């Protein structure tokens, strides 16, 4: 029999636990091992845009938004996402309907190999949600945890500033 424990985590069979996560706006029920990391579970569940660059909390490629704040999925147990809201790159925009941040990254040439980009885009999203009008140092601080070896960050900073400008214009027009 499954029973409710602690913060409402359900114990399932074989020592595994049942959790519910709101991911990209939809409730999902997952059964995970207690020691499983969010990164591994997300990728297993098909969210392949979440990348594994170091599995050690150093590179930022696995950045997702947890209740709107950027977190490293490799440093968090999946169970810690129970009853919380996650946004992965798949939930932000699609090639048919990209988010303005994704569009800005494409237009400025901020994407080279692209392995760091999902994390970088989500870090930008978190920044712009909190500070719609950042200056360059603020952008650099916000992206500081997302390593990129291809671009030198020049065009990524440009992309974040362009996205801010566009989103602000959008809001102003509403």
């Amino acid at each position, binding site marked *: 029999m499954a029973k409710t424990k602690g913060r409402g985590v359900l114990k399932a069979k074989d020592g595994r636990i049942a959790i519910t996560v709101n991911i990209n706006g939809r409730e999902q029920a997952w059964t995970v091992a207690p020691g499983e990391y969010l990164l591994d579970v997300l990728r297993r569940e098909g969210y*392949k845009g979440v990348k*594994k*660059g170091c599995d*050690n909390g150093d590179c930022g490629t696995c950045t997702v938004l947890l209740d709107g704040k950027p977190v490293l999925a490799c440093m968090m147990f999946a169970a810690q996402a129970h009853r919380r809201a996650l946004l992965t790159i798949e939930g932000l925009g699609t090639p048919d309907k*990209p988010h303005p941040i994704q569009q800005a990254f494409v237009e400025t040439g901020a*994407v*080279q190999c692209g*392995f760091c980009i999902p994390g970088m885009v989500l870090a930008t999203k978190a920044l712009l949600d909190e500070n719609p009008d950042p200056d360059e140092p603020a952008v*650099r601080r916000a992206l500081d945890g997302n*390593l990129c070896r291809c671009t030198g960050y020049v065009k990524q900073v440009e992309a974040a500033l362009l996205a801010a400008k566009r989103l602000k214009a959008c809001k102003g027009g509403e």
Partner: protein
Amino acid sequence: MGVADKKTFTVVNHRVEKIDALALACGTAQFTDDVDIRGLLTGRILFSPHAHARIKSIDTRAAKKVPGVLAVLTHEDLPRVRHTTAGQGYPEPSPYDTLVLSEKARYVGDRIAAVAAETPEAAEEALSKIVVDYEVLPAVFDTLAAMKDGAPIIHDEDDSKNIPDAQHNICAKFDFEVKASEWFSEADVVVDQWYQTQWAQHCALEPHVTITYFDGDGRLVIRTSTQVPFHCRRITARVLQLPVKSIRVIKPRIGGGFGSKQEVLLEPVCAALSLATRRPVKIELSRKETFISSRTRHPFVLRLKTGAKKDGTITDAHMEVYCDNGAYGAHSLTVMMCSGSHTLPMYQAKNSRFIGRSVYTNLPVGGAYRGFGATQGFFAWESQMDMMAEKLGLDPIEFRRKNYIRSGEGSPVFKAMGEGREGIEQKIGSCGMEECIVKGLEAFGWHERKKRNAAQTGVKRRGLGCACLMQGSGIPEVDMAAASLKMNEDGSFNLHMGATDLGTGSDTVLAQIAAEVLGVTVQDIIVLSSDTDLTPFDVGAYASSTTFISGNAVKKAALHVREQILKVAARILDEKFEDVDLKDGKAVGKSGRSCALSEVANTAFYYHDQHQIMGVASHTATSSPPPFAAHFTEVEVDTETGQVEVLAYVSTVDCGTAINPTLAEGQNDGAVLNGLSFALTEEMRFNAAGAMVNSSFRNYKIYSAGDAPPFRTILIPTYEPDGPFGAKSVSEIGINGPQPAIANAIYDAVGVRLFAPPFTPEKVLAALQAKTPEKAPVRAQ
């Protein structure tokens, strides 16, 4: 002027959006590990904990008994085929000294055994239960000491091939001399200096990862993060003794390589595990495993002894390099040679000599890394140029201006030194060095900054430094690239290439070249790269070859297709063949009548002279046109802490026609920032037993957005006659500048010269303290 040599463009030289950028930004583009394969096993590798040890026995019985473990392999289970992991053209100019799983541990990180299991946990447990009985041997970690009599012999087996002197741990050697007069007889000034560069790693954000499986017909599919799919197929087939035709290598999106994925490392191990289990297997290195076991930038010990006349003419260039190759000889000859072949032609000396040795030590293995020897060579050369200028009493920039190679000039070095063999005669076609210097000085504000720095007092001192650079564009008469282009009924085209986009944007650049020839947009070009079953051969992405060599192949293929289109269109339009042009997705006749390309394709498919409009072309180059660059920097040195801060950095680069200026800038930006952290922080450090002690991004510091100093790339357009639409390479050259430019700027700031990067505060402070107190700008202690 025909379409082949036109100089005004509609697609080329335009800032076209990278064709895969949107999918990458939305997370839908698929990298190697972004597919779900049913029944996929976890492969893991057991790495040696010892720097040098003979393996007396390996007991795998307990490991095999771990539930969920399907295979445990050691060298005894695999064919004993000595090979090189270097993904180079065949026959590879690197010694055949490696086994897939080693019978002797030669560095901490050497591959000893491999397991495949149902779960990562079972694989991990199996690794811990493999019992290896090692006889630990004396190890050698010093490049020069390894060559001495009595040093431990690292490769003492008799079945290795092409090791010039295994007794002295020399895995490659090359000497060359051009002598016009007695050495240093015409020199008024001589500078004789030693330099030493450090161990560093590529740090592609996607670690090495390979998945192998059997398709429905029993063929082995290797889905892998590689820069060299065709070399990977050839080497894997050979070492596992499989027919080439039984293997298919698929290169999906690649998360960066920078040379590290020019090595065939995981593919044979993973394939061996699939062969043993008949199951799909994935091996993905952790970041730590990538650091300790994959490949590095070869550290160099270099000596330059150079002479010049009072008027600034360089007379003599003696260059001696000792390239530390670590435990195996990957890229040993070529990286060592490129440290000379890419630097010595830069400044013309009548007497020129190169002595090169690559040396085995019990440390991680050197491999291809962006810059490829030129980086190490230019650190020494561009430091030396400033020292010479000072001794001559000349301005360092004017001194370089007097000596750099010009358009129309050749160099005996081009002929004497190729990559791993004799080179080819060539004269410089395009050279934008003068514009690089002029525009760079101006954009940087060199003279204003110089004036501002003239009277400095205080603890923090500013200084300026510059460096001039060149590289190559592919390996002439060695590298071959092919492309095929096929027309579809809607007027779109499939462009299939072996050229390997590893994040560089080559798919886009090459599509632009095809689109330019065919009068369409890149949206009409569907690119597939690379799959050894489906795309024509290409050596792969290395040696700054893709735009130049693969680009020429694509251009030729597109010209074939264009001709076929024009023939069909001429008939439709009732015009002469030579009166028809292709533009805006249409065939346009002299009369002004036009027809859509879809009509051309449908006519060929269904109505007249029915055939598939398609073309295939190959290209090898007879020259390797160097791109040129000039770098300028200002640093501020804290004389109390030794901290060096880069205040400004401008790099100008002549890459011929930039096929895509945005992507060209991006290549240079990335190379320069990598060079900046290589100059100031990056260094693989080892303990006394040869184990790397900083194998994480926390302790091996590559720059983040917050760390990056302000820097700027300026493209200097020229037109390279041998390149596709005037293009030459751009991807590597930028990494060669920051080390010497910063070393020169530190000297300008505080009067101490550092010969061994990275220029950490500890080293700068030690150098300041070693300086005679009366000259030192530091406050009295």
